[in-house]
């Protein structure tokens, strides 16, 4: 078997005397060859593009990738064999896929940071848009930050108890049809489009308070519709990780089931639960669509009362400024700057939540299995 492939391989290479020594392996390209080839391709492509006077990072990268893929396949087909050449081609493509995914991430983050820092300062964070007319080079996001804190705070206060209790039911108590139904519909609920969650609260509010009522509470409820299934999903996974031994040890001491859950299961899983909740929060804090429908888009003043009047939030603020970007002259420029700075603020908040979640799970997880 081995000798047969080797013979065809050396036959395909077709140069020099047939290899007689190594019977266990065919000829292979040295390990340093692909990276060196890649660098060479990049140099040749960039040089050619500069010579032609049409250098652009995007086109240079794409052409380098193409030239490299062709070169490595040819080299591998000549030195190695057809199957190895296919393998090298796929390896190249898989690496390209990853790089391709990094392009938008890097591009987006650099664009936001570069454009955002122009206006991102203490003034921007500490004033509202109250009384700012479009042509004024002023205003900030304080009212939006307050709104975001109030709305996501209420949403968390609703979602965490409901989500956690549901997860406890599914993992500790549930059996039969109800458990199956809850598991299935929580999955379905994760797929509800955010705008539909907003419309749900709009419909609810029309039935309770009549048409045209927007306030922070409505926004918080629409966000909790989106947040609850995420909390349930992550809490469920964390509770399942708690070893059965701990529960059984507790039962053996005569501790009631509910106390076992409260005093043994939850404390063991607390780091994972916190991480899950923070990630859920990071997800809903950037939600825009439901808040446009429920909390209004035109508030400019500081409003910390969720039951009264429109409430601005960071994502809606970005949207509002983008809509104002079309206006002529300086007004459009100021709006765009405010939009980027607010986007930077929002991304920083989300990234901090993400990072904090990772740190919590890394440092506070109980060390099990020892």
């Amino acid at each position, binding site marked *: 078997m081995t000798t047969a492939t080797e013979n065809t391989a050396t036959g395909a290479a077709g140069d020099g005397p047939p290899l007689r020594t190594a019977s266990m392996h065919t000829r292979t390209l040295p390990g340093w060859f692909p990276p060196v080839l890649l660098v060479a391709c990049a140099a040749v492509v960039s040089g050619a593009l500069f010579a032609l006077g049409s250098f652009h990072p995007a086109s240079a990268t794409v052409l380098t990738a193409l030239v490299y893929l062709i070169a490595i396949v040819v080299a591998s087909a000549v030195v190695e064999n057809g199957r190895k050449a*296919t393998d090298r081609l*796929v*390896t190249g493509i*898989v690496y*390209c*896929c*990853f790089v*391709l*995914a990094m392009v938008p*991430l890097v*591009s*987006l983050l650099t664009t936001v940071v570069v454009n955002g820092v122009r206006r991102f300062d203490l003034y921007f964070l500490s004033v509202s848009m109250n009384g700012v007319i479009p042509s004024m080079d002023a205003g900030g996001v304080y009212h939006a930050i307050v709104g975001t804190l109030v709305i996501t705070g209420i949403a968390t206060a609703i979602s965490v*108890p409901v989500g956690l*209790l*549901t997860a*406890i*039911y599914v993992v*500790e*108590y*549930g*059996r039969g049809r109800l458990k199956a*139904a809850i598991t*299935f*519909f929580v999955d*379905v*609920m*994760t*797929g509800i*489009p955010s*705008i*539909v969650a907003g*419309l*749900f609260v*709009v*419909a609810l509010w*029309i*039935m309770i308070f009549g048409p045209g009522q927007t306030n922070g509470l409505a926004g918080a409820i629409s966000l909790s*519709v989106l947040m*609850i299934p995420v909390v349930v999903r992550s809490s469920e996974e964390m509770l*399942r990780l*708690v070893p*059965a031994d701990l529960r*059984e040890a507790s*039962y053996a001491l005569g501790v*009631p*089931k*509910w106390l076992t859950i*409260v005093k043994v299961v939850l404390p063991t899983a607390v780091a994972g639960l916190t991480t899950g909740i923070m990630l859920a929060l990071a997800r809903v804090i*950037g*939600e*825009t669509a439901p808040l*446009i*429908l429920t909390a209004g*888009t035109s508030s400019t003043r500081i409003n910390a009362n969720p039951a009264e009047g429109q409430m601005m939030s960071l*994502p809606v603020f*970005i949207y509002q400024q*983008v809509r104002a970007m079309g206006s002529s002259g300086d007004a459009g420029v100021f709006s765009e700057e405010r939009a980027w700075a607010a*986007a930077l603020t929002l991304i920083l908040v*989300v990234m901090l939540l*993400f990072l904090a979640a990772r740190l919590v799970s890394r440092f506070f997880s109980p060390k099990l299995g020892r």
Partner: protein
Amino acid sequence: MTTTDSSATARIPKGKRRLGDVVFAGSARGAGILILLILAGVATFLLIQSVPSLMANTGNFLTSTEWDPNTNEEPRFGVAALIFGTVLAALIALVLATPVAIGIALFIVYYAPRRLAAILGYVVDLLAAIPSVVYGLWGVVYLVGELRPFYGMLETYLGWIPLFAGPVSSTGRTMLSAGLVLAVMILPIITAMSRDVFQQVPQANREAALALGATRWEMIRMAVLPFGRPGVIGGAMLGMGRALGETMAVAMILSPSLVISPFLLQSGNQTIAAHIALEYPEASGFGVSALIAAGLVLFAITLAVNMGARFVVSRRKEFV
């Protein structure tokens, strides 16, 4: 799994049930039922609130492309163009994202250095953490301008394919731009699902392939991809569900019009979600009710796609 079984069987001895147990179990059960009620509430409230406009509608709701409900008499509106745009945007995103996501998942599981893999997975997850409104801002201010020359090339060389027929929109705010941004947004979901199934491929299968002299790609083709197919399909459908309901990126990037147009490089088309977000602030008369009806259609579509995805994924579990 074992934890649930054992905790379920570890009953408290017969006799009086403690008050604490009754209250706690009851509230946990109540929370679960509340979730079912919320979901039922979403469907029923949307249905109830959409009825008035549907009754008053003088056009055909499912086949008309007009949208003129902001009046108190004779509203005319339909969702045909919106459904077309929604599905078109999601399909573009799906076609662009799925192959790349499979590549990334393979990269993380089988190609990347073992110590880097977790970090790289985390970096891909960051794509999911970026709020959609920021994607929209980046798309409309930066990306569409960068894409313009590329669209010009597409038209020049591929213009004979009807999809890429010109004239190219001068702003670049087209369906293809929106679909491209949606593709970036659903990339992490499809990657995560694919990664999970690729990691679960039994080691015996992979090693058997390698022992037979397979190259890494042959091992993936013979052992990994057949095993992972249902998971990848499920992930792709979940991603499509997300793309169908995505609002802000489309609302901000696309320059909309209510037509049914297959020309991806020209402005036009509109999705249900983006239409709701853009129209809602100006809605009057039957307007809000009509938008709720459109939202109900979106809800039904995403529900069907998501349930299909869950079905595909869960069938895999039985198969293994």
